[in-house]
């Protein structure tokens, strides 16, 4: 049983553009923030062990209201740490997952693989667990395929 979630997307675009969106301040700010949030890159140290520090700022009316109701400031400072950078091939980083209710924050490792194809770029994101004390909790992520099996079994 795998302990991973993978998400795959293909883009009709040159690898240079795709890479830039991941590795430049301007590129990251253009897409990284969730809906209704703006991202401002504070620091970008693009090397293994280097950090990307950024602020996530609620800008949508709904999101601003949500943050207020939850007693959170509209701006959240966040950080990810790069673990691998292979130009136009692979990017890997660790990020603290702190959005799961009732669970202490823990690191989630993300790997992004870029495959240059005739049609453009196929990008594969893999979210894996770190082998720390919390990795077991992440193991359930691998349940996705099992869940499908289960759903069928329960419907039968």
């Amino acid at each position, binding site marked *: 049983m795998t302990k991973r979630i993978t998400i795959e*997307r293909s883009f009709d675009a040159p690898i240079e*553009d795709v890479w830039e969106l991941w590795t430049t301040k301007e590129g990251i700010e253009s897409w990284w923030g969730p809906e209704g949030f703006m991202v401002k890159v504070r620091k970008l140290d693009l090397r293994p062990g280097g950090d990307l520090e950024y602020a996530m700022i609620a800008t949508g009316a709904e999101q601003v209201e949500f943050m207020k109701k939850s007693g959170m400031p509209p701006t959240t400072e966040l950080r990810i740490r790069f673990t691998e950078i292979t130009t136009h091939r692979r990017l890997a980083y660790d990020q603290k997952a702190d959005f*799961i209710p009732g669970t202490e924050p823990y690191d989630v490792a993300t790997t992004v693989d870029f495959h240059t194809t005739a049609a453009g770029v196929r990008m594969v994101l893999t979210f894996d667990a770190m082998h720390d004390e919390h990795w*077991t909790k992440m193991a*359930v992520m691998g349940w996705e395929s099992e*869940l499908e*099996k289960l759903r069928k*079994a*329960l419907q039968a």
Partner: protein
Amino acid sequence: MQMNVFETLADPMRRTIVEALLGGEQAVGDIVDRVDIHQSGVSRHLRILHEAGFVRVRPVGPRRLYSLRPEPFRELDEWVSRYRSLWEARLDRFAAELNRRKKARTLKGKERRS
């Protein structure tokens, strides 16, 4: 102790038992035959799974038959879907930005040619 769905499934033995139950309702003995765990271990983990709402028990004569309940799996499923949809939305913006760049370049190219 009330465990959440993550903690319950964090144990590899419990995952093995749940997998054994994917095929349908079974008695403890059948589960023991299918997994490489001692009977007392299977019983203990079944009790934990039962308390956490993962399995239901049905007594049939002297036998107790165990089967899976869908509710906790739905909870897990929702969690994974939320994580996934967050990324899907992000990647929609990623694709939009790539298109914007491409268009900007085409436009620039045209200007240069004209």
